[in-house]
């Protein structure tokens, strides 16, 4: 039996359903992210696990116990908020020790735990500071330590990095993962940032409009999206309208140019389908694989480690990524190029 279970959970607010038929099993020690655009129900679901919202129907079980209607202060669930929510009237040490003080642990035990937590978040000498004396990133570390100090059964994080600078965000992301693995704590993480979800999680739950679109490892979500929403929400995706030429052999035609896919197509010959291609699967030139398309370079964006090139294929725009290197010849705008890609890079979906 899974450690944390959500069984047909549903939440309806006065005006509209926020979460529908949510089923999820989280194993002990697993890191699961809820990923989706704002309003997709990911935060509502997290708040139901925390106990801040009651499900309209369905059950939530933690370690075999039904906690569906248990008040939040009796759940032993640690929570980290986007706005840090440190108590401004207390020192960092008192913030971290707050939960233990509520549990009436002896002062010596609290002091020890606070010290241990401060070491864990690499802020050993900040115990006597007040929250306002710390940077945003430090405050969020303290919030994490405070949530972990009570040794919760589950750690919940609600967009914890959204208020931080890009660089701190990446740093803290690595910290969160390190701490989570060090403590082996079951974690649910809410984010709208796919990079965050991908880099942190054992599994990602992609949500849209209150329903789960797909649950899978980051690799599965990115490379084998099950729905067109997942395909377009996670990563960048090129979409080309093609006609099926030979369904059994997996042959397509795009503007008179023949393309091969590695699998047969489940739609009849002559049907219009959408061909999806990741930018990183495409190459300029003929080295990339057996499929060829001709187009004209329209834009070149230098992004540092990669160069994103926009190519016009006679009407349809397409983007492709090239890895940067010092000897790279940057494509010139206006020049005609041949693109190539292998058959296994093609996913075919019924027309969107």
């Amino acid at each position, binding site marked *: 039996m899974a450690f944390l279970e959500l069984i047909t959970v549903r939440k309806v607010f006065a005006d509209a359903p926020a979460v529908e038929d949510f089923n999820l099993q989280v194993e002990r020690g697993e890191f699961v992210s809820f990923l989706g655009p704002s309003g997709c129900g990911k935060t509502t679901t997290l708040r139901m696990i*925390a*106990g*801040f919202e009651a499900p309209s129907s369905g059950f939530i079980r933690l370690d075999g116990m039904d906690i569906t209607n248990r*008040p*939040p*202060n*009796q*759940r*032993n*669930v*640690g*929570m980290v*908020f986007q*706005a*840090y*929510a*440190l*108590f*401004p*009237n*207390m*020192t960092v040490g008192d913030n971290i020790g*707050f*939960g233990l003080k*509520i*549990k009436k642990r002896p002062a010596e035990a609290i002091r020890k735990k606070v010290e241990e937590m401060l070491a864990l978040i690499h802020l050993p000498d900040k115990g006597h500071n*007040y*929250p*306002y*004396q710390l940077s*945003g990133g430090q*405050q969020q570390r303290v*919030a994490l330590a*405070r*949530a972990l100090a*009570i040794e919760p059964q589950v750690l*919940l994080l609600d967009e914890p990095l959204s*208020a931080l600078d890009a660089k701190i965000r990446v740093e803290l992301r690595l910290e969160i993962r390190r701490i989570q693995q060090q403590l082996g704590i079951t974690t649910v993480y809410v984010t709208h940032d796919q990079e965050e979800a991908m880099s942190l999680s054992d599994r990602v739950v992609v949500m849209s409009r209150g329903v789960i679109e797909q649950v899978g490892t980051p690799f599965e979500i990115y490379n084998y999206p099950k729905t067109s929403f997942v395909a377009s929400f996670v990563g960048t995706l090129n979409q080309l309208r093609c006609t099926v030429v030979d369904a059994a052999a997996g042959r397509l035609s795009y503007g008179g140019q023949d393309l091969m896919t590695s699998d047969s197509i489940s739609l009849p010959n002559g049907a219009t389908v959408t061909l999806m291609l990741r930018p990183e699967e495409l190459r300029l030139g003929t080295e990339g694989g057996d499929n060829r398309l001709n187009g004209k370079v329209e834009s070149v964006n230098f992004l540092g480690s990669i160069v994103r090139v926009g190519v016009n294929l006679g009407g349809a725009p397409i983007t492709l990524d090239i890895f940067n290197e010092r000897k790279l010849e940057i494509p010139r705008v206006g020049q005609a190029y041949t693109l190539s890609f292998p058959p296994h890079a093609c996913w075919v979906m019924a027309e969107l």
Partner: protein
Amino acid sequence: MRRFPFLSWLWFVLGALYFLLPLYGTLDFSLRIQRGTLSLGAYRNAFADPQFIRSFTFSFQMAVVTIIVSLLLIVPTAYWVHLRLPRLRPIVEFLTLLPFVIPAIVLVFGLIRTYGRPVTILSVPILPSLTNTPLGTNALLVAGYVVLSLPYMYRAVDNGLRAMDVRTLTEAALSLGAGWPTILRRVIFPNLRTGLLSGALLTFAIVIGELTIANFLARPAFAPYLALLSNSRAYEPAALTIISFALTWAAMGLIDLLTRGAPGVLGGAGH
């Protein structure tokens, strides 16, 4: 270089004069009990009357009780409205403004009429007549003061609550296992310090200067004493006004000193 902000200063000076001139006039007058010279005679006379200290102490005590009662009444209410019933906020705000609309005289007669005889519900007595004992009457007095302080206290608390992220702080405390009384005592009250202090200051000033309710409930408060004195004396009431002004500020300074918690709490609300 910036131009001298002439208009701002003009308004500031005008505003300052508006407050300071009457105060200065009273001070000046209080020193002229002896014709032609400035002296502290009026102050000596005022202090010589034991009734002064007695009435001021009484009003001071009533003020402290009023502040405590209104804090215990208003902070949890405003907090709950913020957290759970934000749609009721305009209604609650309107209710707290009622003391501006209903004169104190109406309030005090209402109190006397209602509580001057045994209170019964369906002819079952639940409260004896409160005006028969000093303690009961003091309770009525405090109740009246609490109502008068409502607009100021509520506004001060409301502003304080708006300045902090009440909901997230509450949820953070809940997730750490805290119950409602703990959250109020350990998180909400301490972070409202500035707001509560200004609310308490205004309440204190109102209670010290309140005449109508204390007069009609016949309690030995400071304002009725001052009013009585001014019927027979000229200089001593002016001296008392200055003294009570100074004492009020001193009392407030004391409250500020006593409630001063951790340094930097005021700056800590933002991120």
